[in-house]
């Protein structure tokens, strides 16, 4: 089963047991219900023996239904450490309204851009106040501006030109003056 382009994905992230980014519909519902505010932190159990592999579960939101949940426990970017000098980790993932969606590391890589800023802020200055709300992303929608950034494009052009020159020089030598 692959992911349907119209499935909706909400990124979330938990660092050191603190929910930093949460799906907007959970934030709304959680406003009046502490159980819902705790839902994601409690659902995203981490099996330490599985390293950074993807965890998949079903998230049941009372009064709302079931969602697919995929997340992984990975180092926070920037190499921060906790008070025991361990590499600080975060549970980053997505909640998806399509239970059959095939959620992979690729899916999480796509939504990661949303989470890095808030994570950085938590690591640098701590966090006060409620978590940020993430809006739904359509699975078919491109999250990063373009797959080929200008820098990478330029690098490819330069490399191709250099390769061609080398080839021409070699040919010239073989064929003689």
């Amino acid at each position, binding site marked *: 089963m692959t992911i349907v382009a119209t499935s909706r994905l909400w990124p979330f992230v*938990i660092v*050191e*047991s*603190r929910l930093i980014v949460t799906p907007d519909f959970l934030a709304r519902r959680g406003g009046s219900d*502490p*159980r819902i*505010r*705790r839902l994601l*932190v*409690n659902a*995203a*159990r*981490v*099996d*330490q*023996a599985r*390293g950074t592999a993807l965890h998949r579960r079903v998230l049941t939101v009372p009064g709302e239904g079931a969602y697919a949940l995929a997340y992984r*426990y990975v*180092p926070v970017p920037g190499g921060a*450490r*906790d*008070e*025991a*000098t*361990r*590499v*600080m*980790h975060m*549970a980053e993932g997505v909640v998806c309204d399509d239970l059959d969606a095939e959620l992979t590391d690729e899916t999480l890589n796509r939504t990661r851009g949303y989470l890095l800023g808030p994570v950085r802020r938590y690591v640098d200055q*701590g*966090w*006060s*106040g*409620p978590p940020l709300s993430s809006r739904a992303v359509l699975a078919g929608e491109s999250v990063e501006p373009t797959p080929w950034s200008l820098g990478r494009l330029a690098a490819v052009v330069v490399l191709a030109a250099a390769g061609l020159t080398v080839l021409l020089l070699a040919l010239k030598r073989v064929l003689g003056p």
Partner: protein
Amino acid sequence: MSATTLRVMVFGERGAGKTLYLAGLFRGMSVSGPGSVFTLQTGEVDRLKLNRIYADAVNPLLKNFPPSTHWQTEPWRFDCQITNRHGTFRPLSVEYLDYSGEMLDPLDARLGMTDEEIEVDPELRALRGYRDHADAYLLMIDGLKLLRMLRGAPELAGWLEHYLSDQLQVMEQRLTGTGGRPPLHVVVSKWDLLDGRMVDGVPVTLGAVAGLVARQPTFAAHLDGRAQDRDAPVRVIPVSVTGPFAALDEETGEIVKVPGRPVQPYNLDVPFTALLPDTIRWRREQLLADTGPSGEGVERKLNRRAALLAHARAFVGSARGPLAERLDRWATRRQNGGSPAMSIATAGLAGELLHQLGAVLDEQESRSRARLREIQEEHQRRRQAVATESEAITLALQGFAVRLAEFEEKNPGSLLGEVLS
């Protein structure tokens, strides 16, 4: 599953070393070594998980130690197992709860939890439930924090007293109606970082650390309370999962792996080993206190209770099941004016075993001091001969007593407060 299960509540802040300790404990005791009379067993999935955590921690090819535990509770259950040609015997099971250390203090601003959220959080509830029904306490002191405190880190001034009194408060709250204070093992983690290290020109020793702990005002009061009520003793036990394989990088302040140095676990088994002996002695002491100083009365009372329980057990046909549990509960409540919570610990012990085992323990300890090696060999021979559950528990207990005697001889300062005998 064995008839007797001891549930241990591990207290330890985030990063104190709980997860690696439990993984290391299982690793060390799940393979038989010289002198061991039993091995620890657990379910297949849990076995694989614990092995993985341990392997990652001591793998020199992986630069980092395993990450912190997520917000969750995770019970690990270990069965003591003796296997020989007569069969397989599981005289004792011990359960530990692992969790993320920040759960001990959910009001910490870093978590940003509201009162309502603390109230409804299911993992916090699980932790409280476990804590309030524990048969013994393992209070872990983070060796790295202790070292930094000893060196005068300003942010850690007052930390030890504060941390200890928070946890002792929880234990004292439980006192009402439980019939006393269960065994308490103060485990100092990361001992490899502390042992013999010079601080202010003086080497760190177990005696010094135990003295420091005992002098903290709240702890001193707790020890007094235990002594007055003839409660279980307190032990201070230094442990290390890694030994010299881990080291403190003084420049970065980080704990690093040092490939090439050996992994040498230290004393990981001692808190486990002390569980049953400390529980039995404590129970016996309470019975003695119940009946007053007249020795004769004690004997009679014990015999009566033992006969009664034996009779009831024979009737029920098993030490398990709800009826047997009710009986034990009844017996325990009678004994202590206590709550049903204590019944699990004393299920197999309250009556017929208690007296007998207490005597075994005392005798074994004095003998072991004399000739350790011979006794270990004798235990190996007897392991082959074990043919019943009760022989199995007696042998396990003798094994514990030998190991404890050995530890106590090397660490004379490890018992705090009044020593029960």
